């Protein structure tokens, strides 16, 4: 096979929320840009409904990527053009004010997250990606029931704001929208950058950034070499960015450290009315509990996953399975305090992460709150999914006992998404792997533009914040490039 060789002003590794946004901004500014993506470009009509096929095509390691701990925690990431935006539910939240203030005060990132400027960027992205509240006509019962439960308990819920255009409520966000309605990066900013002259190479896993006299000049992998005249932008995701940097000779005490995430717990409930989870926005309703450090979301799963979550085996399980249309599933994303570390071991990521006891108490509170909302919405029975506790609860009073249950890590099925912090940005050189312009310290022409640069987790879905922060940094980079030319 001939070796692929190419050259551009900027070479961007990864096409998720960070990489695609950087490409969109730089290409629009007139720079020549090449995007390099490990996964494949999938057309909406090629996204299969069957879970196994869908995961093989677009989910990293088929969701077998996990933390290396006594109780492993799966880490969900996309691996296709669009990165995780090609498998998420398109939930959009702006960077919370308290997080912005914290980043400004503790990490000196005032210019990067300047309130006036970043609000303009948020608005522009919201216009371009058609962000709006989920329409009532496509909520479906899984979402509506959560709204009814929240209303009954007086909790502050709302229809989720998503980046979608013409969503028909296929509930197939994880497998990939067959209509192309979700404005994920593969549908929006990657094609937009290509229209502006950017090039895309897929199926290319970057193994190394080539450094010459302290400057990033190219990226290489099996069968390809792509030269960068002005710079290399790493947007390979929070797990792989630090591994790629470390393997390319970047050294900093915090590289791979400060790893944070929002692990989630889920709960299934049975209702005596049709829910038909297969219709509706996969995630169309949420109950933010920011002060408590978590957010509840309705979450439609593919039928294979929902079936596996129903308790038991044999006749009892079959009976439940034959009535799969009566179940709702919701989850809670937890803003955990724990910090982990990602290291490069034999060229691959080694993820160490252990929730703190306080985090586990929060997981228990999420389970109890989900249960209360489900009963308030009319659930006949719920499956809390907490080991060592009742497999099935039919009496809401049992939630009081769950609230008192001592907790250990092995009690919960946690799945982590929303990853942060392994190449932290800070004005303080001893803290920040990258400086406030997102340039890697100690290397010229090398930048990180994904959630690795976030100094803390957010407590909300990060896609919008990643895009806005990267937009800001990419605009500054384009200006510097123009001035230098």
């Amino acid at each position: 096979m001939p070796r692929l060789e190419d050259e551009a002003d900027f070479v961007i590794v990864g096409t998720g929320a960070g990489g695609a946004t950087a490409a969109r901004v730089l290409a629009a500014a007139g720079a020549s840009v090449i995007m390099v993506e490990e996964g494949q470009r999938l057309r909406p009509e090629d996204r299969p409904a069957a879970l196994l096929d869908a995961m093989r095509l677009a989910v990293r390691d088929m969701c077998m990527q996990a933390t290396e701990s006594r109780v492993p925690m799966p880490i969900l990431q996309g691996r296709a053009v669009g990165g995780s935006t090609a498998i998420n539910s398109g939930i959009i939240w702006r960077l919370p004010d308290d997080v912005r203030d914290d980043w400004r005060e503790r990490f000196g990132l005032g210019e990067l997250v300047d309130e006036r400027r970043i609000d303009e960027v948020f608005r522009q992205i919201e216009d371009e990606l058609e962000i709006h509240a989920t329409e009532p006509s496509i909520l479906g019962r899984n979402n509506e029931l959560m709204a009814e439960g929240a209303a009954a308990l007086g909790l502050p819920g709302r229809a989720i704001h998503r980046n979608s255009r013409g969503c028909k409520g296929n509930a197939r966000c994880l497998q990939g929208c067959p209509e192309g309605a979700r404005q994920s990066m593969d549908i929006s900013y990657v094609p937009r950058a290509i229209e502006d002259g950017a090039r895309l190479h897929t199926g290319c896993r970057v193994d190394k950034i080539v450094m010459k006299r302290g400057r990033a000049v190219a990226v290489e992998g099996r069968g390809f070499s792509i030269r960068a005249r002005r710079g290399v932008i790493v947007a390979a995701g929070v797990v792989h960015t630090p591994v790629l940097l470390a393997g390319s000779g970047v050294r900093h005490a915090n590289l791979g450290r400060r790893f944070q995430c929002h692990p989630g717990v889920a709960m299934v409930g049975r209702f005596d009315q049709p829910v038909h989870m297969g219709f509706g926005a996969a995630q169309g309703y949420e109950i933010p509990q920011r002060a408590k450090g978590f957010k509840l979301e309705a979450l439609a799963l593919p039928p294979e996953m929902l079936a596996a979550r129903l308790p038991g085996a044999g006749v009892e399980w079959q009976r439940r399975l034959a009535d799969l249309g009566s179940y709702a599933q919701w989850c809670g994303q937890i803003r955990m305090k724990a910090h982990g570390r990602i290291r490069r071991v034999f060229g691959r990521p080694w993820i160490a992460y252990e929730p703190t006891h306080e985090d586990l108490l929060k997981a228990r509170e999420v389970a109890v709150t989900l249960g209360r909302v489900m009963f308030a919405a009319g659930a006949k029975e719920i499956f809390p999914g907490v080991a060592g506790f009742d497999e099935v609860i039919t009496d809401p009073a049992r939630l009081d006992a769950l609230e008192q249950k001592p907790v250990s890590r092995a009690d919960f099925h946690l799945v982590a998404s929303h990853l942060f912090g392994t190449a932290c940005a800070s004005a303080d050189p001893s803290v920040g792997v990258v400086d406030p312009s997102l340039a890697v310290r100690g290397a010229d022409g090398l930048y990180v533009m994904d959630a690795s640069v976030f100094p803390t987790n957010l407590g909300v879905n990060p896609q919008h914040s990643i895009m806005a922060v990267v937009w800001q940094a990419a605009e500054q980079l384009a200006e510097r490039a123009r001035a230098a030319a």
Partner: protein
Amino acid sequence: MSGFVVSEGSEPMLQPGAIDWHRGTREFLEMASAKGRLGVRVGLLLAMTAPLWMWGKLRTAAGLGEAERARLLAAMLEHRVFFVRELTLLLKLVACMAMLRPAAVRAQTGYDRPAPRRERLLLPVVREVA
């Protein structure tokens, strides 16, 4: 895999023989990552030998009756050791993938909303006016 479902008292769609468990497992093993393949193989080994290490019976799961095999898997899903629970759950997920792959089976579960019935559209008849 077939241990998760039993014929007695089951719904017709889940009768043994309706699902090709071998094909389902093989497909998963072909597509899964190395870690996934290892997980399924260790899970199968645990399940096959579970009558011995869980109940002290000198036989494999294959030697159990249908109902007893389902009872064994249900006990493994609630086992106090996390890895036993998780690997059994992985087997259950593989079984679900095999079971719900045929569109006809999925349609019978009620997961999807039934397509709205289309009212027959009756167009007005144009008659020649004398």
